[in-house]
Each structure stands twice: as C-alpha cells, then as structure tokens.
C-alpha cells in the first residue's frame, strides 16, 4: 500500500470534495435556512418575555400547578408537563447517581490535591496512594458526574424541544442503571490498581464494554425521539446532543480497541480521544443546556440564531482535529502537531459565535442573575466556556506551549473548562429540571446560594492558583540555568492555595447533595413558592414581566 505524501494528499483532497458536495446538497435542501423565527421554537405562545425559573407560566396565580388534584393548566402547559415527565425515571436515576459520584469524586480530588504538598498524607495505604486516587478522580468526574448529569439533562431537553414524549424510554432507563454498574466496577478496578494505564481510558476493556452498551441504550431514545419529532425545526441544542451521542461512542470504541495501537501511535490515539471527549461529548452536553436555558429563563430568543450554525459546524470541523496539541514537542510528525495548532486557533471562530449568542442575549437581563439560581450557574458557565476555549486557542501556540506543557497550567485549564463551564452548566440544569420531574420545589434557596458561592469562589481560587503556579513551574522547566528542584518548589504555595479552593468546592457539593436529598424526601410543592433567590415577593407570583 503506497504511503507517500502524494497518497495522503489525495485522500484528504477526495474527502474535502465529498464534504463540499454534501455541504452544497444540504444548502440546496434548505438546511441552513434558519432565522430568529426558529430561535423562538422553544417558547409556547405567550411565553416570550416571561421568566421561567422555576415558575410555571400560564397558570392562574392562585392555583398550585404541581398539585395533581387542582391542576388548572391550559393545553400548552398540560402538554409540556407530560413531555417533562416522559423521561422521568431515567432523568432521576442519571441525576441522583451523578450527584453521588460528584461528591465522591470531589473528595478524592481533594485528597489528591493535599498529597501534592503533604506527600506523607495517607501514603501508607496502597489503595489511597496518589497514583490510584488521581485516575479515580478523573474517571469518576468524567464518566460518573458529567456524563450522567449531561445525559439526564438531554433526556429531559429532547421531549421539550421535539414536542414528543420520549420514544423507547425503557432503553435509557436500563442504560442509566448499566452505566452506573460500569462506573462502579471501573472504580473498584482502579482502587486495586487494575488499570489500562492510559489517561482518560483507564477502565479495563470489560468495563468499557459495559459503558459502551449503556451509552448505546441511552442514545436510542434520544435519536428515535428526534426523528419522531412534531416540531419540524431541529433546535440548536439538539444538534449538539445528536452530535455528542454520535461522536462519543465512535471515539470511545476506536481509542479502546485492543491490539491495534502501538508505541507512539498509541499516544496519538490517546490524545485524540481525550481531547475530543471534552469537545465532542462534554462541550455539546454543556452547550445544548446553555443554548436552551439562557433564552428560556429570561424569555428572550437567542440573539443571532444563524450564528449557531457557525458555532456548531465550526466545532464539528475544527475541534475534532485539535487533539495533538497535547503532544507538541513530542515524538510525533511535525505536520501533525502543526495541524492541531492551526485547528486549535481556528476554534476561535465557533467559540466567538457561541459567545455572541450566549452573552449578547443576556444584555439587558443581567438583573435576573440576582434572583434566578439557574441563570447564575448557566451564565457563569457560559462565560467560562468562552474563557477556557480562548485560553486553549492561545496556549496551543508553540510560544506559549513551550512554557505551559507538562505543568499545572494544563490542570488549571482543564478545571476551568470541565468545572467552570461543564459542571456549572450541569448544576444549572439540575436546578431547573429536578423540580419539573419531581413536581416539587427546592426547599431551601439559601442552600442554593451557598452552593453557588462555594463553587464560584472555589473554582476561581483553583484556576488562578494552578495557573500561576503552573506558569512559574514552566518557566523553570525551560530555563537551563535553573534546576528541576526549583520547578517543584516554586509551585508549593500555589498547590496549597488549590487545596483551599478545592475544599470550598467539596463543601459546596456536600451542601448540594444534602439539598437534593431534602428535596426528594420533602413534600414542598410549588404552592409554597418557587425557589427564587433574594426575592420573597416573587414567591407568590406565577410569572414575571421584568
């Protein structure tokens, strides 16, 4: 088989031709004919300008919309209630288990953080050694918290956006249980040091099979419901959801296939997977939620809906090729590193498109952040998406990468994205969705506030401390007149600060868990008033015209 550069050039040329043909075909079929009209599909008649968080619009103010005996909903509200409840089982299992994994994973993260500047901490025990808790933390937040909370949110979003009750709900119900089995089994394996040894892919192959099966089961209702939709336009959130459910399985299978990868190529496949799991799985989950919650809560459609096409297809094209920026300067072909650097900078295009849509939409509505819990989490999360993505475009450039590579700076960036963006947006989703599937209200708005501030201050401390510490570390690592010892010692105060930030985050998560348990156990219905922050006068009102 010829392997010269002419052959590879020919392959890429043919693929570009095919892509161009499909693009023109899609253009002819009117796929890109979207305008502000399509942005409004998320609103029922009369909802524009109304705030939904978590007040239920369109019911008479004096009736309690969640009490089954006295429901006086109009037809739209009745239909919406049924759609919201159609995936109830799966959403509840995914959400509640994800929160459990979040707390456990955060505790492991804190233990790991402490070990950096207190190496003797729990070091006598082989099950609690750094090298085992660290991958436990990473896999648990990825597969336990973010993936499951994300899937729960998707299974709730899809019926709302397609105006069709979840088709084949039993599949995702079974999937939600099996996914948990996979994460549990994988975590036990990692405790015992049974690991594939590859970052982000540590789970043994049999656990991978369990998770892949569960993911497939969860995807079936997602895809079937969108195909059976009664709303003809596919809202932007659904592009991301469909994309994520398509890309993640392919990434997972290719990266995990045994007996194919070798040597340095294995590292290439590793980082193709690991970076794409962020941009083609977690990012779509987060953006799908943000694209729905921001406009829906404030009652205003997305600012420039046509830009969302640029955001989505830009992500699809550029992001998939950025993975090799993890191996700049490593034993890989130069053209490969350069390709990923170029594509990383190219990401500015979709990121700015999404930023315009998320942030400009909020202009004139920032006051609502004072009293809407969902909005606080999702707007902050959306801002951190913009920030961490632009940071990524920057430190993919060789001048920056030389310093930041191999340091805590990368960890800072990872947490800015995975926590500052994805996790915060998932919190927003849970605060918005859980009342609608449990038909109860959050009992203690003060706990939501504590959760927000703990997470907010925590992540800011975390990102700044590891960012500064990492950068200083990198300056030492690239200074021939310095020593490795210096590169370690210079980070210590920042690692201590990171543990402080991490402690706040763990505390916030425990408060969150307790609040969720109280909500499950309690009986506070929305007649007691929706869980707004800081606006007791609004507790009586069904809708707001701010």
């Amino acid at each position, binding site marked *: *088989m010829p392997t010269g550069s002419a052959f*590879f050039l020919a392959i*890429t040329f043919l*693929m*570009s031709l*095919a892509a161009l043909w*499909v693009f023109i075909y899609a253009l002819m*079929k*009117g796929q890109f004919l979207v305008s502000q009209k399509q942005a409004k599909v998320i609103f029922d008649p009369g909802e524009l300008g109304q705030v939904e968080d978590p007040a239920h619009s369109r019911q008479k103010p004096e009736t309690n919309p969640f009490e089954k005996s006295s429901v006086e909903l109009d037809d739209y509200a009745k239909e919406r209630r049924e759609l919201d409840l159609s995936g109830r089982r799966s959403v509840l299992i995914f959400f509640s288990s994800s929160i459990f994994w979040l707390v456990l994973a955060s505790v492991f993260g804190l233990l790991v953080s402490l*070990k950096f*500047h207190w*190496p003797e901490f729990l*070091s006598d025990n082989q099950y609690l*050694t*750094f*090298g*085992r808790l660290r991958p436990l933390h990473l896999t648990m937040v990825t597969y336990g918290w973010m993936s499951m909370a994300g899937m729960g949110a998707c299974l709730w979003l899809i019926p709302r956006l397609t105006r069709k009750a979840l088709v084949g709900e039993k599949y995702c119900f079974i999937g939600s249980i099996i996914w948990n089995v996979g994460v549990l089994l994988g975590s036990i394996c990692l405790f015992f*040091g049974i*690991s594939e*040894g*590859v*970052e982000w892919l540590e789970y043994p192959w049999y656990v991978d099979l369990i998770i892949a099966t569960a993911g497939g089961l969860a995807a079936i209702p997602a895809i079937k419901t*969108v195909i059976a939709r009664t709303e003809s336009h*596919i809202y932007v959130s659904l592009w991301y959801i*469909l*994309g994520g459910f*398509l*890309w993640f399985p*392919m990434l997972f299978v290719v990266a995990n296939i045994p007996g194919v990868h*070798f*040597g*340095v*190529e*294995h*590292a*290439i496949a*590793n980082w*193709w997977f690991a970076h*794409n799991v962020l941009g083609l799985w977690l990012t779509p989950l987060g953006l799908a939620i943000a694209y729905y919650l921001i406009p829906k809560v404030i009652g205003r459609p997305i600012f420039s809906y046509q830009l969302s*096409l640029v955001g989505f*297809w830009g992500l*699809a094209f550029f992001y998939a*090729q950025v993975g090799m920026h*993890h191996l*700049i*300067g490593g*034993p*890989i*072909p130069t*053209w*490969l590193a350069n390709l990923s650097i170029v594509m990383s900078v190219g990401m500015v295009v979709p990121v700015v498109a999404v930023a315009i849509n998320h942030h400009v939409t909020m202009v004139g509505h920032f006051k609502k952040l004072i009293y809407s819990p969902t909005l606080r989490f999702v707007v902050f999360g959306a801002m951190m998406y913009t920030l961490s993505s632009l940071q990524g475009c920057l430190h993919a450039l060789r001048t920056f990468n*030389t310093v930041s590579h191999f340091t*805590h700076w*990368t960890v800072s960036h990872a947490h800015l994205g995975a926590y500052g963006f994805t996790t915060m947006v998932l919190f927003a989703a849970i605060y918005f969705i859980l009342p609608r599937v449990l038909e109860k209200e959050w009992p203690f708005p003060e706990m939501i506030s504590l959760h927000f501030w703990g997470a907010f201050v925590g992540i800011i401390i975390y990102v700044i401390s590891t960012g500064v510490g990492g950068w200083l570390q990198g300056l030492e*690592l690239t*200074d021939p007149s310095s020593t*490795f010892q210096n*590169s*370690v010692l210079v980070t*210590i105060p920042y690692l201590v600060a990171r543990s402080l930030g991490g402690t706040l985050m763990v505390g916030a998560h425990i408060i969150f868990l307790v609040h969720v348990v109280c909500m499950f156990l309690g009986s506070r219905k929305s007649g007691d008033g929706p869980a707004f922050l800081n606006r007791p006068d609004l507790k009586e009102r069904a809708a707001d015209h701010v």
Partner: protein
Amino acid sequence: MYSVRLLYIGALITFGVAFVALIVIPFMQLRPIPPESNLKPYTEQELRGRAEYISQGCVYCHTQQVRDPSIGADAAWGWGRPSVPGDYAYDYPHLLGTMRTGPDLSTIGVRQPNEQWHLLHLYNPRSVVSWSIMPSYPFLFEEKKEAEPGDIVLHLPKEFAPEGNIVVAKPSALDLVAYLLSLKRNFPVDDVKQSETSMEEQP
C-alpha cells in the same frame, strides 16, 4: 437544520476528516518505523516492573519523552537526547506522560544506575531527596526482625528507618526498580531516517 439524516452525514464527515488526519495517516506513517537498534526488548522482570509502574500510576507525575533543547531545559539537565518513535517500539500501553511533577524518566537508568538508591527512594523519597513531594510506597516493602538469605535490605538513614525492624524489598519493588533501570534511552539514534516526514524532535 431540519433533517436528522443530513445532520448525521455532516457530523460523520467532519469526524471522518479528523479520524483520517489524526489516526489513519499517522498510523500508516509510524507503522513502518522499526525499533531503535540499540533498544533492548524488556525482560520478563522489567515487564512486571512496568505493570507495577502502571498500577501505581507513576505516569501521572512522570514523563518519558525528552524535548528538543530549543524547547526546554531537558538537555541542559542531562535528561538525554530528544525522543524518537523508535524508542517506544516495545511500549504498550504508551507511558509518555503529561505532567512533570517529577522528572522525566527516559534516561533514569543512566542518570541513577544504583538499585539501592531507587529502593530507598521508593520506600520514602525524602530519605534521599529532601525536597521531594513524591508519595512514599512503604507497601512495596516489608519490615522484618532480621534478614533472610536472598533478601535485599534497605540501608535507610536512621530518621527514616522503623524502630527495631529492618526493611526488605518485596518482589514488586525489585521488579519496578528493574524496569526503571532499563530506561536508558540516551543511545545514539539509528542513522536511518525515522520516517518520510520530519518529526517534532530531530535527535
């Protein structure tokens, strides 16, 4: 977007382009590269040690990829020459690493060839490197009253030695050290051009 089918075709194409560019083509380019002729395959013990390295998660703090002198102090600190693909021919899974909380280990078998040093360092890193933040691995060792024939005893400084007992290396510790000592990737790279394409690191 109004068609699931077209959305999927588009998403598959963008994914496919990346798959070809980042997986297929590098696979085809790197596959023909032979192992470095100076690179010895791992012995049974070294492979056991490598498995221990994976099980203990050493890869999360240590890299095994040396950078070019133009982009780091690696060469100035004696860490070796830039790594090439042929160095990793016998490595599965790869252990290139992503963090340098600890130093790069590609040439640790050359920089520190002393088995006793490594055993002391694993038992408690601060017994040989006062400023180290590496965890201790006492569970790779056992304490005894007196040595039996064949035991490798640790000569610990007094303040790190347990009261009244001696510390003996378990087979897992010896295997791990054997693996570390096998990492001697400072040999000259084969004259043969690594691949048709220029690499990030030219040795």
